[in-house]
Each structure stands twice: as C-alpha cells, then as structure tokens.
C-alpha cells in the first residue's frame, strides 16, 4: 500500500509543496469582468499582435510563464519541469508557446481540468523528490476554441442560452519544495464520469456529475467535512452546472452551498456581458485560481480552499459520431499554512 495514498483517489503530501507565485494574463472581455482587479495583465485585443488566434494563445502561454518566473524571482534554468496543456488539437498552444523555453516539458490534456491536473502531478513530482521547482500553466482562447469545438467565427453563428463563453487567458503556478506556503495538502484525482449528455452547448451539465463525484470522494477519503474549507470552488460548470452539482451533492447528503462557487460563474458579469451560462475553458479555472483565489489566500481572506477544475473530454469527432460527453474533475486542496 502506497503510504501517501488516502482512500480511493486521494494523495496526502507529507512534505507539501508550496505555491511560490502565480501569474495570469487575460483577454479584453475578461478584463472587463467581475475579477478584473485580480489579473496581472489584460491584453489589448484578442490577436495581441499575432496573425492568428492560435498564435495569440501560444503567446499567452509564453508570456504567462515568463510572468510567473519573474514574480517568483526564478529563471528558466532553475525549473525542472513545466506541465502544460490547452484545448487545441495536439495541445499546440502549449507546444508552440513553450518551444523556446528549454525547460523539460510534459504536455497534458485534461480539457478544462488541466490546471488542477497539472498542479496535482506537479505536487507529486515535488513531494516524490523528483523536482524542486515545477511550473504548471494552461490556456484557452475564445476565438481558437470556437474554431476547434464549434464553428469558425467567420460563420457568425448564434449562441444557445446554455452555452458558455470560453475564457481568453492563461494562468500559471510556480510550485516549489520550499516550506513557505501556501501549501498543496491533498490531491483528489477524478474518474471519467459520463451521464450521457450529448449537447455540446451544455457542458456544465456534462461535467457537474464528475465534480460532485470528486467532491464526495475527497471528503470520504480524507474524513474532512465541508466546513474545513473557506471556499470550495469548481472550474467551469457555469450557472447551469453549478446548480446541478449542488443538487447532486445534496442528494448524497452533502450541503456545501454556503461556501461553494464556480470560476465560470465568477469571472464574467453574465447579465452585462451576455456570456449566457458563464465562462469555460482551461483558462477559466487557471486565471481565476492564479488571480483571484491565490491573491485572497495570500491576503489571508481564505485559509483553506478546495479547488476542483472540471473538464469535458469530448472532441469534435466524437460529437459528430453522436458520442456523449465524458466529464472529469480533479481536486487540489490548498492551505495558507500548515496547522
């Protein structure tokens, strides 16, 4: 039995890694949203001087990595691994964004759950003694995601009321082995969870069961209760998925409503910004974590946070072949201090 494994799906870190710094860069629309104060930089327009959306997304990754290293006072050659992923085919935003960094690279695909996935694996690398400094970075871009998953913007399609708005932005976290905090205490790795939802305009509903499952498993594995956390926050369920997640948890006897929120609900002003169900994408949970959540932890307003990034693991091909949408959710527990 692995000594750091708790219950079915959870890992407990004996020497918990610290999050030394975070960085977030977002698009202009996110820069007008509810959390605009918390981001490091707001790009002036979606192309950011590049000639395609995909190149702009790679630039987001590249600049966010540079920003997190600058904020953490570290250079590229001090980083043992960079763990990164995005939503594009073959994760090209990360591949091209990081090709000149000279840092050993693991490319990840967890759809919109990639931020928590990369932080989970990064923490294991550090606690396992394989690395001292690891950067986790993910991105998404509204315009490249529309082309990837729905229709090219040139078509000018209308959006359905349950649809979510892919966040343009990139978030990064620099994890280190030093004991300065904030600390990553537990990681609960999610299972693929498919309840048969087929509507790609309703990803919140497809991912909510996975989020509920991971939250329930986290508390079962650790023996903790929801009151232990100041904030339990899912990645990008949106308004529709957030309600489904709460209902599913209540059906299983867990009420977290007074300390629960969703990054996709928080990032935009859904009434003013016409974003329908809310934000989504790897960049949604990544920028809200790297911006808002991390800053609130550093200010001392949040002492313990359970961060659950959620992903929809479908592709345009599986959608065309009428497959349902598998969901995934990974949880990372972050503590301000070790008491």
């Amino acid at each position, binding site marked *: 039995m692995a000594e750091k494994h708790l219950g079915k799906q959870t890992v407990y870190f004996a020497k918990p890694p610290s999050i030394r710094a975070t960085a977030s860069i977002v698009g202009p629309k996110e820069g007008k949203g509810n959390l605009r104060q918390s981001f490091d930089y707001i790009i002036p327009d979606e192309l950011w001087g590049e000639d395609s959306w995909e190149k702009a997304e790679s630039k987001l990754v590249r600049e966010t990595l540079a920003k997190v290293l600058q904020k953490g006072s570290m250079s590229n050659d001090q980083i043992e691994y960079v763990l990164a992923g995005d939503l594009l085919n073959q994760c090209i935003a990360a591949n091209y964004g990081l090709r000149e960094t000279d840092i050993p690279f693991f490319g990840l695909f967890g759809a919109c759950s990639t931020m928590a996935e990369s932080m989970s694996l990064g923490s294991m690398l550090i606690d396992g003694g394989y690395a001292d400094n690891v950067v986790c970075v993910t991105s998404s871009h509204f*315009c490249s995601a529309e082309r990837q998953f729905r229709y*090219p*913007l040139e078509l000018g399609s*209308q959006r359905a009321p349950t649809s979510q708005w892919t966040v343009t932005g990139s978030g990064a976290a620099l994890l280190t082995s030093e004991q300065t905090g904030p600390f990553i205490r537990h990681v609960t790795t999610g299972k693929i969870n498919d309840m048969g939802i087929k509507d790609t305009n309703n990803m919140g509903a497809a991912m909510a069961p996975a989020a509920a499952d991971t939250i329930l498993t986290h508390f079962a594995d650790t023996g903790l209760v929801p009151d232990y956390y100041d904030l339990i926050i899912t990645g990008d369920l949106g308004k529709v998925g957030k309600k489904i997640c709460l209902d599913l948890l209540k059906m299983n006897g867990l009420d977290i409503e007074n300390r629960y929120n969703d990054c996709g609900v928080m990032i935009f002003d859904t009434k003013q910004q016409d974003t329908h169900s809310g934000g989504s994408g790897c960049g949604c949970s990544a920028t809200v974590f790297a911006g808002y959540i991390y800053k609130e932890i550093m200010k001392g307003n949040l002492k313990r946070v359970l961060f659950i990034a959620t992903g929809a693991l479908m592709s345009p091909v599986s959608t065309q072949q009428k497959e349902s949408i598998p969901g995934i959710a990974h949880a990372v527990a972050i503590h301000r201090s070790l008491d």
Partner: protein
Amino acid sequence: MSYINAFLVGGAICAVGQVLIDKTKLTPARILVLFVVSGVFLTALGIYQKLVDFAGAGATIPLTGFGYNLAKGVFNEVDQTGLTGALTGGFKAAAAGLGAVITFGYIMSVVAKPKAKR
C-alpha cells in the same frame, strides 16, 4: 405596405430560427439545412409562392427563400426540358446566387480579417 409585409414575414421566419436555437438542441448548421429543406417543401406544396407574393423579399431573402428558389427552378426546368430538369433546374436557378457567394466570399476573405465577438 409592402415594406410592412416584408418586415412581418421576414421577421417571423427569423424568429422561428431564434426559437429553435433557444428551445431545442439543434446546432446552427442543422437549423440552416432545415430552413433550406423547409423552403423546398413549402414551395412544392404551393405554400411558399403565396408567401412570396405577399411579402416579396421578406420571404425570398431568408434561407427558406433559397429552398424556394431551388424548387421553383426545378419546376420551370421540368416544364421546359422534361425530367432531366429535376437535376439541372435547381442549379441553374441558384447559379447566380451561388456564383456571387463564392466570388464575393473569396474577395472578402482576402481583404477582411475575422474579429473576435465581444
């Protein structure tokens, strides 16, 4: 008066599209195909011609009007050349429209760049 008729009928057709987006799980591409095919059927049943007579461009400009154009082309061509008109009529009637779409679409794609939605 003809402006009002065009506005009412054209607006009603577009409103049907909005309801389909809001209330069903149909993707935009499916709704477009549905509109073209509906235009063909309604023309074949003789209904769409009445709508065109009443509303003019209000009925011919929305996508159902493209279906109307295809079906009407087939009817005319079958009358003139027999059954092969069923294969050629639609293309002939739509040729000007499709040629314009491809030509202007190409020109615009060269001179214009797509912008992000806000």
